C-alpha cells in the first residue's frame, strides 16, 4: 500500500515535470516570432506614412516611398496566380481523382515532392535560362511570374490534392450511383467541398511567392525604375528585392526605411495568412462531414 502510494506520487511528479518541460519548449519556439514581428513593427512604424506607401523613392532611395515595389509585388503575385492556380488545381484533380497507382504517377508524385525541395535561387537561375534568355521574355513580369509559378506549383498541388482526398469517398460513390459522371461528381460535390482547403493552399503558395527574393533576382526585379510597369514584358521593382537592395547595396540608408519596407512586406504576407485562416475557419464551421 505504502510503496504503491509513493510510486503514484512519483509518477505524478514526473508527469508534471514532463508537461512543464514541453510547455516551456513550445513557448520558447514562439518567442522569437514575437520578437521578430515586434522588432520590425517598433523599428518600421515610424517610417510608415501616406507618402511612404504611395510615393516613389527619392534621393538615391534614402527618402521617399516604396510605391513601385508594392505595385510590383502585387503584379507578380497576380501573375503567379494566373499560371500556378489553374495548372496546380488541374494536376491535383488528376492525381487525386483520375490517376491510378502506377510507375508513371509515382514518378510524378516524387517529382512534385522534390520540386518543393529545390532551393529558390536555383529556380531563379532556371527562370533566367529558360524564360529570360531562351524564350526571350527578357527581365519581365512575365518571366518572373512564370519562375515564381514553378516554385509555387508543388505547394498548390500537394495541398489541393490533400484537400480533394479529404472529401469522403462515399460522396463520390453516391453521386455516381445517382447517374453522375465522374466529372459531374468532381464538379458538383468534390470540388465545392475541397475548395476551402484548395484556396488555403493557393494563398500559402502565393504568400511564399510574394516574399521570395532569389527567383525574381535574375528574372524580373529592377534596382530602381522611375515609372510603373505598363506591360507584362516590363521589369518591375518588388518589395523583397527592394528590401535586399536598400539593406545591402546602398550605403548610409536610414534604418527606418529598411524596417518600414520590411513591415509593409510583412503586413502583405501576414494579411494573406489571415485571409487563409478566415477561410479555413469558416469552412470548418460549415463542414458537413
Amino acid at each position, binding site marked *: 500500500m505504502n510503496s504503491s502510494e509513493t510510486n503514484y506520487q512519483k509518477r505524478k511528479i514526473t508527469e508534471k515535470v514532463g508537461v512543464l518541460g514541453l510547455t516551456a519548449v513550445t513557448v520558447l519556439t514562439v518567442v522569437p516570432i514575437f520578437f521578430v514581428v515586434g522588432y520590425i513593427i517598433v523599428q518600421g512604424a515610424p517610417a510608415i506614412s501616406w507618402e511612404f506607401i504611395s510615393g516613389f523613392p527619392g534621393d538615391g532611395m534614402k527618402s521617399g516611398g516604396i510605391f513601385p515595389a508594392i505595385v510590383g509585388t502585387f503584379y507578380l503575385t497576380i501573375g503567379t496566380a494566373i499560371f500556378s492556380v489553374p495548372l496546380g488545381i488541374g494536376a491535383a484533380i488528376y492525381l487525386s481523382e483520375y490517376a491510378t497507382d502506377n510507375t508513371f504517377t509515382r514518378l510524378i508524385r516524387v517529382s512534385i515532392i522534390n520540386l518543393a525541395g529545390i532551393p529558390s535561387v536555383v529556380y531563379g537561375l532556371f527562370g533566367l535560362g529558360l524564360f529570360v534568355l531562351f524564350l526571350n521574355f527578357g527581365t519581365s513580369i512575365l518571366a518572373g511570374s512564370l519562375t515564381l509559378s514553378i516554385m509555387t506549383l508543388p505547394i498548390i498541388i500537394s495541398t489541393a490534392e490533400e484537400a480533394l482526398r479529404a472529401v469522403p469517398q462515399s460522396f463520390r460513390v453516391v453521386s455516381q450511383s*445517382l447517374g453522375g459522371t465522374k466529372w459531374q461528381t468532381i464538379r458538383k460535390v468534390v470540388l465545392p467541398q475541397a475548395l476551402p482547403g484548395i484556396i488555403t493552399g493557393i494563398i500559402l503558395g502565393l504568400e511564399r511567392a510574394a516574399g521570395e527574393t532569389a527567383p525574381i533576382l535574375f528574372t524580373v526585379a529592377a534596382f530602381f525604375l522611375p515609372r510603373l510597369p505598363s506591360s507584362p514584358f516590363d521589369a518591375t521593382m518588388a518589395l523583397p528585392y527592394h528590401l535586399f537592395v536598400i539593406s545591402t547595396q546602398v550605403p548610409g540608408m536610414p534604418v527606418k526605411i529598411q524596417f518600414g519596407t520590411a513591415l509593409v512586406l510583412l503586413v502583405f504576407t501576414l494579411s494573406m495568412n489571415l485571409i487563409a485562416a478566415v477561410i479555413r475557419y469558416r469552412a470548418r464551421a460549415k*463542414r458537413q462531414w
Partner: protein
Amino acid sequence: METNQDIKILVDNYSLQYSDGTESLRNITLPIYRHCINVLLGPSGGGKSSLLRSLNRLNDLADVSRVSGQILLDGEDVLSPEIDVIELRRRVGMVFSRPVVLPMSIRENITYGLELAGVKKQSVLDQAVERCLKQAALWDEVKDRLDDSANALSGGQKQRVCLARSLATEPEVILLDEPTSGLDPISTLKVESSLQNLKSEYTIVLVPHSIQQAGRTSDYCAFFLQGEMIEHLPGQTMFTNPQEERTRDYVEGRFG
C-alpha cells in the same frame, strides 16, 4: 400472383472475382421478379453486396479482376461494354447501408440526380421532391424545412432522404444494401413499410440487415454462402420449409 412470375433481371451464370482475391461470386443464376421485394440473404462475406453492386455496375469503381456470365435487365446485358452505365444507374437506383447525404440541403439531395440528368424546370423538380419524400414516408417531417442542410437530420431521416433521392430519377429497380443497419427499430419499420408501398411501382432488391427483416419483407429470397447461391425460394417457404440443410441452419440461427 401472375405478375410475380415476370422476370425483371436475370442473373445468368454470373461469376466475379476481385483483384486481391478477397470476395467472389461463383456461377450465380438468379431471377429478380418485377414488383417484388427480392431479398439476398446470408452471412457477411457471402457476396450479396457484390451481386447488388454488379446490378448497377457500381462495382466498376472497385478493383474487379474477372467477370463472366450475364446480367440481363429486361433482356439487355448490363455487363456489356456497349451499355451506357450512366443511363443504367438512372434505371437502377441504390441505397447504401450508411445513410450518406450529400453536403447540401434536403431539397438539393433529392433533385441531385435529376439535375445531373439535365432537368432544369423548377416545377418538375419541386414535384419530384414532394413525390419522392412522400414515397419515402418523410414528407410530413421535413416539408417545412426543405432548404435546411440534410446533415442536420437524424440517422433514420437521412436514410429516408437517401431512399427518396434514389427514387427521384424514377428508376425501375431499387437496390438496397442493408439500408436499416444503423437505424433504430421505429425508423427501420418506417423504411420497411415504405418499401412495401414502393414495390407496386418498382422492383426491389434488398440485402436485409437481419434474418428477421428478411422474414418480414421478402417475396422471394435467395440464400448466399461464401460466394455461392445455396437456394432461391419464395419468402414464406424459405423461412418455413427450406430445402437445404445449410439454409435451415442459418435461418434458424445456428450460425451466421
